[in-house]
């Protein structure tokens, strides 16, 4: 395959900066947030829980918006192969 003429056109303001994924503690009340996440799944079947997680990922993905942050987060989350 020949190379395409050019790669994706990143907006200029992205070109030289590092992705800004926050991996330092950022939750004001981690216990509370975690308990909320677990409680949100209460009384859901496994299938419903998976569907809810998927919706949650999409909602947070949209909230973050920044393509580089999402790519960095997916790289951190994915198990090493």
């Amino acid at each position, binding site marked *: 395959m020949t190379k395409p*003429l050019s790669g994706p*056109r990143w907006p200029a303001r992205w070109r030289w900066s590092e992705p800004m994924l926050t991996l330092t503690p950022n939750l004001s009340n981690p216990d509370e947030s975690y308990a909320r996440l677990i409680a949100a799944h209460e009384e859901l079947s496994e299938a419903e829980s998976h*569907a809810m997680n998927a919706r949650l990922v999409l909602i947070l993905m949209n909230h973050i918006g920044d393509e580089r942050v999402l790519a960095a987060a997916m790289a951190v989350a994915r198990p090493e192969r």
Partner: protein
Amino acid sequence: MTAPIATPEIPAQRQNLAFTLYPYVKSPDQEAVARRHPVVVVGAGPIGLAAALDLGRQGVPVLVLDDNEGIGEGSRAICFSKRALEICDRLGAAGPMLEKGVVWNLGKVFHDDRLLYEFNLLPEAGHAFPAFINLQQPYFEKFLHDTIVAVQAAGAPIEIRGCNRVEAVTPRTDHVALDVMTPDGPYRVEADWLIACDGARSPLRGMLGLGFEGRVFEDNFLIADVRMTADFPTERWFWFEPHFKSGASALLHKQPDDVWRIDFQLGWDIDRKAELEPARVRARVDAMLGPEVEYELVWTSIYTFQCRRMERFRQGRVIFAGDAAHQVSPFGARGANSGIQDVDNLCWKLKLVLEGMAPERLLDSYDAERVHGADENILNSTRATDFITPKTPVSKLFRNAVLDLAATQPFARSIVNSGRLSVPCTYDGSSLNGPDCENLPARTRPGSPVPDAPVADGWLLQALGGGFTLMTFDAEAPEVIKAHGVIVRRLALTATGNAALQARFLGEAPAAVYLIRPDQHVAARWSRYDETAVRAALARALALE
């Protein structure tokens, strides 16, 4: 490569033609020693016809060979994009297409029995052509052929030979030799340049032993074209996992003549013959439309699809265009539309090379630019296909999560992908591109197709026509520039009082000068006219550098 088939089958008229247009007539070539033609086009489908029309209108003699005598049955491609119509307009064929075609703007997306949302293509104001028309492919081809007949009468050197099937192709250093079979037996013909428009199964590609790599999607789609006078609106309706269970997805779309395209996704392990039984097809259609709706089955077909392309579209003096060069899934209307753009890109280059005005390497830019276009189309169409037919459980989980959210959350609607509809690609990074000018709008940067706009006497693209043009906006320049054997005509425009021109070509800038290629793509642009710079950009656009 030249080995002819041992027992050649005599080409005969097929039973199922929508229009018989070029019945077999014996040519004097058949009695002659291989006659040389500047350009031979193989295949008289939409791409071959458009190529013949484009070259013939420019005075380049072109011979079209087709193994049939007219246009095959079946609606096939039905969705023609604005850019394809603009190109056909340059070729003089768009009027009847627009008149016959169905214009649509509204789409509805359903999941199960729920209407998730509606979208409006909301075409930008200030364009001669709508975003899309729906038109059965036989009409599209017929209108191209009608235009060929009209320009032939005016002296355009186009010849179409029906029932002429290419049996062998032999590339030579300075030409290509073809063995052609006819009802009167075989003959030989030679071409300085051969354009292969012989479709996705391209026999020429096979004869030359060239690869066609890509992805096969393990799914079958059933097309049922039905004629009915039912009162459905002129909208594109798409169902994911429809409640009527006629397929894993379904599409309803209007065509001319009260015909509706219905598409059902059937899955991989099916009995194709059984699924095409009229009773079986009708059961699916009945479930979708409701038992009370009366209709007639016009055409049915089952198709699978691939997303793939040739590694290179130029192979010496053989140039591949349309489905012969690249194939995409139908989602997004990127098949025939991109083939028409291949023709648009190729024909001016081929003419200049034939006339000795540009080196052969200008044709390598056809390869680079249209491979870029094909990759963009394959990427878009692959993504749509992966959304419509998720390949893994987790992919389906996320797909359905998107659909769930789309009913209430606008952000999720932007992720729903039932086909990102075809838009022309920008040749970013092309070797033909000249300098860009800061502060002018990104959408008209070098490599971009010129967006249409209203101008004093009609439309910008009609005023541009098909040669090299220096488009000036509130800037001085000579009326005619002659350089490198090419004539560049000026099109003087003012953005004063024309918001579309201002937004599309100037932005905040007070003036600009654009060099436009014959295919109406931007070659270079400046804030003012500079003769040396224009000559240099023209040399670049001709691959003289």
